[in-house]
């Protein structure tokens, strides 16, 4: 195999694996399982809702998408999932703590699946 072919295989492998969800590690807190829901019934939130809720589960995974978190929440019957991207690249040229020009990059997506107390 030529050097060029090896390089192509290495890069292709990287791109392939970079696109896959990895290191997925979830936790479920309720004693009984809830019936699964349709994915379209699960709300996706980026902050805490105003109405009271209980935490059903926590999800986290590398290279995950919001759709992936929503799917996991639907599987366990949650009403909503609060999604928070964490980690990522950080520009070494940044000088202010509250500025992050790489805030769109994240290494891991976390999701907190919740069930509303009052429906």
């Amino acid at each position, binding site marked *: 195999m030529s050097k060029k072919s090896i*390089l*192509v295989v290495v*890069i*292709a492998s*990287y*791109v392939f694996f970079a696109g896959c969800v990895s290191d997925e590690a979830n*936790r479920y*807190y309720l004693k009984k399982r809830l019936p699964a829901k349709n994915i379209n019934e699960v709300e996706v939130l980026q*902050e*805490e809702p*105003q109405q009271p809720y209980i*935490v059903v589960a*926590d999800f*986290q995974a590398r290279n995950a998408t919001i759709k992936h978190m929503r799917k996991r929440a639907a599987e366990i019957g949650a009403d909503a999932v*609060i999604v*928070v*991207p*964490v*980690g*990522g*690249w*950080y*520009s*070494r*040229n*940044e*000088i*202010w*703590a*509250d*500025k*992050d020009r*790489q*805030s769109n990059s994240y*290494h*891991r997506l*976390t999701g*907190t699946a*919740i069930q509303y107390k009052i429906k």
Partner: protein
Amino acid sequence: MKRTHLLGFGASCLILLMTFGCASVTVTKTAKGYFSPTDPDEIEILVTVPNRNFIELATVTTKNWPTNDTAKMHNSLRAKCAPLGANAVILGSSGIDHNGYFWASGVAIRYKSQLTTREATKIEKKGKKSPINKERKLIGYRATSEYPSGKIITTPVYEANEP
């Protein structure tokens, strides 16, 4: 453009990003549930365990830092731990990798006394003084840095321990 060219371009961008402009911060959540984000400017960087009650939110590692960019490295931890609701990061270990770049790892924490705005508002509506203000009594101010222009930055000093 051929697919191989695209892949090569992508890989080159990644290598350039790592080599010249960017460090990385890896955050792994360990806490249960959701916490509202905090202000990155207020996040403390500690090397000793505080004597206030706290919960651990996540393990954090940052790497690819020039050895003289320690303060920027601290800011990277502040920026990346704020979305999780951290009040402080306790650094546990650090070192220099085989490329000569500095790395550090630690744990992001949230003080138990840190109530959410909603919780504090509820208490205030009931006519009680918010524990947020009640708990951390302001003692005074101290000068923390001085600019060449003569401007002095002061930081409020609160009571050290929880009541």
